């Protein structure tokens, strides 16, 4: 299977502010893709161009191997960051409307809505008005709305923002289920921990540029294991060592980050000479550190 989403050198500016600048990325079929970056990095602008809510000033958007056209949108499910519902509509009517706008027949939309509502324990609420529902229930309705037409590609902008813990877990389960069913999922977030847990591939965006893109495992591997957690008795005085980038004492253990190119064995030899080591473990860098490192490089 080819690329589900391909962006080629897209650029979008509002007045003098450049939101997205010469951004290219490719999302392969299947799997979870994380669009990562701090607030204001251009994630939402990128997503909006992906589904034709706005058009890029330059560059090309391709979906499912075709040049973007609106007909393709019925294969995409979208959950925007700013999401809401018509307050005075009944839950079922509302879902049927949104399904019908995605080309489902009203009958089919009704059938699927009822099935989803049952699964989400909303069956008693289908004839209530949206405004009578709690915020958590409304969030569930919004998930259903994005998935009702069984899209091949699911795009979610900051899906976890503002969710209560229960819904957060439920959304994660749904995403994993969709992944198992062979769907492609793209979500944006500024929270690195979610990406580490869920994503297969990522794109790091900062100031409208893609600064790092690809398979998450490969990216981490390419950074090497330059991170050490250790426990010891005595004081090895590693803070002042010339190949240590940073040193954090957490009380029970310390965390040491090595300078690029430094060898962990050197650190071990030094530490053994000076103190009594009870644990010495090499770790992959966290995404957060990679991010900070990359942003620092490009700043």
């Amino acid at each position: 299977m080819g690329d589900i989403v391909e962006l080629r050198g897209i650029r979008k500016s509002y007045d003098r502010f450049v939101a997205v600048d010469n951004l290219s990325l490719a999302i392969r079929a299947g799997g979870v893709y994380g669009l990562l970056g701090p607030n204001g990095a251009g994630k939402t602008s990128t997503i909006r161009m992906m589904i034709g809510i706005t058009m890029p000033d330059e560059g090309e958007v391709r979906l499912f191997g075709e040049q973007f056209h609106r007909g393709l949108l019925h294969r995409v499910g979208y959950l925007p960051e700013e999401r809401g519902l018509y307050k005075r509509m009944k839950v079922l009517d509302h879902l049927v409307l949104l399904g019908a706008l995605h080309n489902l027949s009203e009958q089919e939309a009704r059938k699927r809505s009822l099935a989803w509502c049952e699964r989400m324990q909303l069956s008693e609420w289908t004839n209530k008005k949206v405004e009578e529902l709690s915020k958590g229930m409304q969030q569930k309705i919004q998930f259903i709305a994005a998935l009702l037409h069984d899209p091949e590609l699911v795009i979610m902008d900051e899906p976890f923002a503002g969710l209560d813990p229960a819904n957060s877990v439920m959304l994660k389960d749904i995403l994993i289920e969709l992944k198992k069913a062979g769907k492609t999922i793209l979500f944006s977030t500024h929270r690195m921990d979610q990406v580490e847990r869920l994503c297969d591939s990522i794109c790091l965006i900062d100031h409208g540029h893609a600064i790092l893109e690809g398979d998450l495992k490969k990216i981490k591997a390419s950074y090497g294991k330059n991170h050490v957690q250790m426990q010891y008795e005595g004081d090895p005085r590693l803070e002042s060592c010339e190949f240590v980038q940073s040193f954090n004492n957490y009380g029970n253990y310390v965390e040491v980050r090595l300078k690029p190119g430094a060898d962990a064995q050197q650190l071990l030899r030094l530490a053994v000479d000076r103190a009594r080591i009870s644990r010495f473990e090499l770790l992959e860098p966290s995404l957060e550190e990679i991010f900070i490192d990359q942003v620092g490089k490009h700043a």
Partner: protein
Amino acid sequence: MRNVWLLIQREYLERVRSRSFVIFTLLMPAFMAGTVLVPEKIEQMNAGGEKRIVVVANDPQLAAAVGRELSAAKPKAELGLETEEELKPTVYSIQVDADTSDAEGDRLRQQVSNGQITGFLWLTDSALEEHKVIYSTKEAADFGQSVEIRNAVRTAVTKQRLSQKGMNEPEIDTMLTPIKLKTLRIENGREGTSGTMVFFTAFAMVMLLYSVVLIYGIAVMRSVIEEKNTRILEVLLSAVTPRQLLAGKILGVGAVGLTQIVIWVTFAILFSVPGLLASRSFLGEVHIPVEGMIAFAIFFLLGYLLYSSMYAAIGSMVNTDHEAQQMQWPAMVPLVMGVVLMNFVIQHPNSPLAFWLSIVPFFAPILMLVRILVAQPPLWQIALCMAIMVATVYGLLALASRIYRVGILMYGKRPTLPELRRWLRYAG
């Protein structure tokens, strides 16, 4: 197309099913009927009361004559507001007072104040010489009463003077019989509807058009703001284009307005036909103005599209109803101005100024409609006016959809004019 249809349906059903629509639709005719019927009923109930009036005059014969004229007066007859139903005449009890001293005046004033008499008429010789007669009463605002008294005094004085010139009574009565004037409108070369009828029809239709365009234009604006605030728009935008959204909204809300008009007009016809048939005698030939209704339908649709597209653009630029109120003058001012200018156009429907005003697209729904209803302007003028309106509506819709497209995704501060110009240039 299916999407637009779905959006129209949603908009229409939600509004038509709402309690406020039902209440408003039913209450409005009741209110209108109330404003017409209730004062009339009250007047009928109050009429027939006794009015005690003292006529102060040097000439007791003249005073008695005034009393006779007052008692014979036919209520409202001289007001021009003829009604088929005769009101019960007011019973006047007249007291003639020959004491014209200032002290007597003061005494009578006292009596008016404590309600012993309704009023007194200062009909002294000196007052007659100055052609200035004063009627003093607490009920000075009773317009009908003053007119009746004025007429009675005039007739009595005229009769007395004529008889002093040697005329006998039958001669005088013949001379004083008033001549009634009835204005008829020439339609297609024949006399048709009476002028009064034309005026009231035109006025009612224009006010209906004005209020429905205004109410539903504002409804479009508020609905856009509400969609912005509930953050539903971006959810919809993954399935429909902003243009479809805008079309669905304007057409859906417009259909609600149309439904309301149809209900009201049906009400009006059902209730007014018996009355109109009964009052044929003074309204002239009553006929349903078919051309007028077609013109109304066309100008309502064009006017609604024109103003609602402006309101939609305004709604997409702001975030709160409060902000919208400050921003809605570009749509409000021309609409209200149209109504203000209507008075002039109704009086001079064929003047060059009326022509130029009525082809201005923002005034046209009101002013051209008025001209069609009262004066049958040449066909080319109507055609020209409609062509200009269609072009303007097309342009405004294009402009509004560009503003809307950008505006609905913008939260926060509303745009300045240069920013707005840039919005129009965005690729999308």
